[in-house]
């Protein structure tokens, strides 16, 4: 539960260098990161090595709670994707939760 800031890098497009899975329109049973297999939140599923997300210390399995203040716990997969890929922003602020952080 802590805020991380990521800068977008310019490729041909703005990229964050990670991929997300989940969303309320997805089958939570397929989410390998949620504990009870019923969490329909947005999770980080993959991170590009050397990408901005990795630089910002985002980890695979992180659950994204907010994007720039937008709630990400009850959104569809596509909504989350759009929030993360707005062209006119070059910084994305994420509120994420991580199991290891919770335990600490």
């Amino acid at each position: 539960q802590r805020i991380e800031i990521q800068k977008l890098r310019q490729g041909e497009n703005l990229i964050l260098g990670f991929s997300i899975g989940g969303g309320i329109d997805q089958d939570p049973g397929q989410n390998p990161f949620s504990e009870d297999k019923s969490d329909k939140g947005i999770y980080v599923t993959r991170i590009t090595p050397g990408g901005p997300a990795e630089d910002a210390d985002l980890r695979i399995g992180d659950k994204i709670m907010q994007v720039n203040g937008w709630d990400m716990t009850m959104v569809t997969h596509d909504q989350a994707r759009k929030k993360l890929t707005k062209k006119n922003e070059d910084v994305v602020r994420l509120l994420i939760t991580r199991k290891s952080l919770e335990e600490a």
Partner: protein
Amino acid sequence: MEDYDVRSAASILASVKEQEERFEQLTRALEEERRNVTLQLERANLPPNPAISQPLAWQQVVMQEQSPGNATSLAMMQEPQEPQEVVEETVTIEEDPGTPTSHVSVVTSDDGTTRRTETKDMSTNVKVTKMVKTVTTRTVRQVPLGPDGLPLPEGSSPLSSYTDSIDRRYMKNGGERFITPQATSTLTRAYNNSYNDSYVETPESQYIRHYGLHDGYADLTDNYGSLSRGVNFRPPRYPYMPNSYRPENSYTLPIRKDDYGHVAQPQVPMGSSTVDLNRSQPERFQPEPYGLEDDRRSLGPEEEEPYELEPDYSTANRRILPGTNRGRTHREPLRDVHRVRGYPDDPIEAELIDERHPYIHGMYSAPLAQPERGSMASLDRMAGRRSPSIDSIRKDPRWRDPDLPEVIAMLGHPIDPVKSNAAAYLQHLCYENDKIKKDVRQLKGIPVLVSLLDHPKSEVHRKACGALRNISYGKDNENKVAIKNCDGIPALIRLLRKTNDMEVRELITGTLWNLSSYEPLKMVIINHGLQTMTNEVIIPHSGWEHEPNEDSKPRDAEWTTVFKNTSGCLRNVSSDGAEARRRLRECDGLVDALLHALQSAVGKKDMDNKSVENCVCIMRNLSYHVHKEVPGAERFQDPSALQAPGSAGPQRKKKDDAGCFGGKKAKEEWFNQGRKNGENDKNYDTLDLPKRTEPSKGFELLYQPEVVRLYLSLLTESQNYNTLEAAAGALQNLSAGQWTWSNYIRATVRKEKGLPILVELLRSDSDKVVRAVAIALRNLSIDRRNKDLIGSYAMRDLVSNLPSGQQRPAKNLEEDTVVAILNTIHEIVTDSSENARSLIQAQAIEKLVAINRTSQSARETKAASHVLQTVWSYKELRNALTKDGWNKSHFQPTVTATPKATKNGKPGYDDTTLPLMEKNQDGYSTIDQRDKDCKYKTDDGSADLTEREPLKNDTNRKHYIRSNRPAVSLVDACDVKPQPVDSWV
């Protein structure tokens, strides 16, 4: 391999030159022989035919792959096909060995041998495989030797030494293939290719396969379906090969043959020598691959020659490949190839890739070798091929797979076999690869493929059709639109009209089926192809005859793949609204043929297959709104219904229906206890039913009471949920509405003892079936007598399908189904306090209250509250209700705490206060529509993945597809399926 080459190379080089000279002579001689042989080849062609059938099998396999959506059907097809393929493989294998034994120098003899071998192969596949292995080893040896050049003069012995090492490798590979072809299909495939190549003149074979030479493509195609071709050619070639091999006759006779033989079977020193010559300078030889083109050409004009040359080599290889692959995993081979290509790791793959490359070059650079040259070219090629193979072995970087633009460019190649091979390769590439499909579209490959549909050569339009079929499959509707935009649909229909080739017809109809899953294309297909598909496929395969001969027995429907594909296509297009339904209903002979086919299915008790499912779905769709859309329907409208749409309908019927149904007693037998009034019993049969002076035909058949028995038979016998759902849906559609025929249908269902059948199906595990049956029961209960019977006997089953409170029952029905059941219950209890009482006795009130208060679904809540209000409206029941602890608040939506309930309260009131009729009507139309929609979707889904997608998310869809597919495809399926949706940001 490399080691060999290195060792032998030095020593061989010297000898090679001499050999080359010989080789040239031989090649010349071979050309002459080939000419002679061509005649023989014609004969030989016959033998190939059996092989062709096998190829067909391959193609079919491909088809299956192509149409994952049709997975079920595909699966079915594959099974039969596989055996065929195996046979072919075996045949080819046998031939090789057989030929050596026969040692027939004469071409004709060769042909004969080939044929013989084939038969033998059939009998003993195992042996054949062994033979093949040996052969392969030989070829391998030759190839390496060839390049080395050493073995040539000495012939087999030296070669053998060389080959030994090579052989081992190959053998190992071969062994692997044979042993576990399935396990490592890709590897096996690669091996196979390499083997094949290696066998005969590895290079050549490889070239052929990979590159598009006929052989090469054939190999690929084999995988795809082109195999047939390859196979065909091969058989003739084999014979040649053997002859040449053994006898070194080739020397005496046509040198070429020898060469071929050598090529085909490395064993001959001569061949090896020749090979060596060529090989010795692999680079030079590569040009020879151009020669391959010739072969291709030759194929076109003179199939014999080119075939012979390449066939020998290629055949062995191909055959082996196909055989191994086919026998075990049809699809995998293709994929394997891809994979192989994709993976540079495998040496074989690398080889293949290399070879292909040259191929391409050959094609492009040397567009056409002249036919004459063809023979020479073939020799050259052989040499070249060998060299390439060697090269490939050496991992010469020059060889590579043609990339997509190159393949598409090859579609416009002047040489027909190049076209067909390119198309087959495309088909292979596109299989299950949406990206490639998209790329093909963006590279403008689709118009080219479509234009090839009108190509006179069956080989070409078949392969083009196969590629289109794969491209048209999938959720990417852009591809479908692209096919339509270049007039692909009329072209397909034209070809369907023109061709008699079953395989091509399957491809066409499969493509159309895929196309039909996209909404905007449905009317296009109807406009262009409806009558053609009906006349060319549906009617002939249904067994129906316009004017039945008294002499001939009525024919049964044949569940061919063509029929299945076509009916699936029509099933999809039949969901495209009123206009589509009208067109299909009025299509001459369509309804008649479909009904005949279904009756035949019932007669044969064979009604679980996909074709039956498709037919029933079409019938169901055509039955939808039949009471509004059929010409002249107004005449049959029930005037009373128009006046008093609501509850008056049933009541009025009671009064109005004076006629007595002869079969009344029969109906009563089952449900007679339930009947309360004699009046209710009255049937509407006697209403204004038009007297039929002649048997009805066309769309009239849709709603004739005779169909009720058909649907009930299907409901009784079929195990296919989709068929059950569609049959119930058909009854639902027919029993909806207020026209004479629906009255009659409702009575007929009862008379045919259909109610218990339907009630039984309420216990089905399939959500869709339960829903369709529930709605059918609701519509049937418009008939007063049916309502009483259903209320008495179906209530418990209906209630048991309802969720109880928070906990869903084991069945976990979807919202639509629950709503449908609630609506049915509502219809049943309306106007019938008896039925309301039985509802209470079924312990339904508790469930209804729970749904009303706690359901997450507004629709469920609303429907439940309607029922509760209706029940409460029976004052005579209130005592019993209060005794059970219920009070008015439980039955009043407004009172409940749930906001949803309040919202819905008013409509609910309206329903209760107003005559039920309105609700009923509402119910009819909405339910029907909803149901229809659902049905369409499901139908489409099953028919075509694309359609299905809207309903379910990708993962589900993929699962579905995979599950349907044959085991072979499972590997790929697994790959695709596991990935849940995730997107990069």
